[in-house]
């Protein structure tokens, strides 16, 4: 399956590269700091949220800013990538109506541009590790695993949302609200232990909860998640990807009729 993605990506790699390059160039055009914003943004957000939650609400979490940043970059990637993928078909209506290009390349390119942002955010985490004197663990080297699964999950959701948004413009508005709900259902700024058992029962259906936990375990706590956690994360990622891809393939020929 991963092989299939890479094969698709390889075939149209130059188009993909050009589309991602366009996103990045346009995004920071005419700003003085340019790409540096991808690094500064998560750090500034983190600063604000950690002041609010460590000073005002007083959660007792060790290395709170790093804890926060880990959750935040995963959630931001998911939210940004899926939202952009959702709108990618509508945005490129002119292109799709005039040239025969493979349609999945548009959501995929959005995923990749968000991916570039994510890499900058990782640099932000590294900076915070140094500032806070967080111990470095060997398990950190496993960080690509949760991120790859996150990519797969977001791609699947993005494909599904692209189909929905193309048919119903309401989705764009609804999705913003859904993202807000999902944010509170993800342990970004609160400790998992603070949750009542009823809330935990619901949150277990949130794939981001598992991915954030996985990511923090290997990066921050130096532990390797057990087999069950692996299975849950992989099942969510692969499941959503397969679902998204199937739905997208079934509906893509109708896109030109709706945009």
């Amino acid at each position, binding site marked *: 399956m991963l092989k299939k993605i890479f094969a698709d990506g390889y075939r149209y790699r*130059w*188009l993909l*590269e*050009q*589309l991602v*390059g*366009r996103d990045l*160039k*346009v995004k920071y*055009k005419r700003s003085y700091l340019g790409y540096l914003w991808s690094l500064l943004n998560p750090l500034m957000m983190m600063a604000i949220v950690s002041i609010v939650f460590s000073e005002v609400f007083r959660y007792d979490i060790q290395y709170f800013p790093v804890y926060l940043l880990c959750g935040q970059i995963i959630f931001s990637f998911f939210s940004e990538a899926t939202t952009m993928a959702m709108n990618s078909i509508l945005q*490129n209506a*002119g*292109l*799709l*109506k*005039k*040239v*025969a*290009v493979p349609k999945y390349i548009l959501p995929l390119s959005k995923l990749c541009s968000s991916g570039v942002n994510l890499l900058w955010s990782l640099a932000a985490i590294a900076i915070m590790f140094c500032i806070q004197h967080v111990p470095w663990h060997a398990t950190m080297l496993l960080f690509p695993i949760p991120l790859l699964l996150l990519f797969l999950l977001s791609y699947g959701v993005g494909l599904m949302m692209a189909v929905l948004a193309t*048919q*119903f*413009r*309401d989705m764009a508005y609804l999705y913003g609200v859904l993202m807000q709900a999902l944010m509170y259902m993800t342990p970004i700024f609160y400790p998992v232990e603070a949750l009542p058992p009823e809330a935990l029962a619901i949150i277990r259906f949130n794939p981001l909860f598992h991915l954030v936990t996985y990511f923090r375990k290997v990066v921050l706590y130096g532990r390797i998640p057990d087999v069950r956690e692996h299975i849950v994360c992989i099942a969510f990622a692969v499941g959503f990807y397969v679902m998204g891809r199937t739905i997208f393939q079934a509906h893509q*020929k109708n896109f*030109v*009729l*709706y945009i």
Partner: protein
Amino acid sequence: MDIIEVKDVSMRFNLANERIESLKEYVVRLLTGNLMFQEFYALNQVSFSVQSGTSVGILGTNGSGKSTLLKVISGIYEPSAGEIQVHGTIAPLIELGAGFDPDLTARENVFLNGAVMGFEREFVRSKYAEIVAFSELGNFMDVPIKNFSSGMSARLGFAIATLVHPDILIVDEVLGVGDSAFQQKCEQKMQELRSCGTTMLFVSHSIEQVRAVCSHAIWLRRGRVEMEGDVDDVCDAYQKWCETHSAFE
């Protein structure tokens, strides 16, 4: 040899469906059973074939299905029924510079558009000077496209689209925006491609141009092939019909 074969192709649009863009409307229509309503055939059982190396003009009034036909042949639309076989590469000049990003400079857009057209990176790089020379935009390559006039972006789009020698060139009234010198240049380029054996599908409302460029013609009327054959015969018949009819009667 037939390079394009179109067999019983129909393209159906659902006019009612086109307007459903909100969830509420969808549910209402689903409940009232109004979902498949007001069907419109832009193409209705169209069949023809094009021989390799010929130039075929497509005539018809506004809304007769010309552009839909070209889009179906170039693979943008999937026909609702029927079959299309195309043997060879297609360069669609349906809209010049499709996919240009207004915020990027002309130089960046050359590469973006090249990628969209399915060219290789090295190829576009090696032809870059040629594109600039043909479009005569040498002084403006670092200007964002949003500051270009429509004629200027058409020049750039044409230069990129005709980089390769395609087997089939599809031209849909794209040359209207350029000035006369550039139009002449484009016609020269198309002539050059044709003499290299490129097959051409040509849509234009200028019957004079069709007569000058094409050897065959197809006349579409309300999505059906009304007449097909030698360019002069079809043009004569079409002109005669036009004198007494209008497009949407």
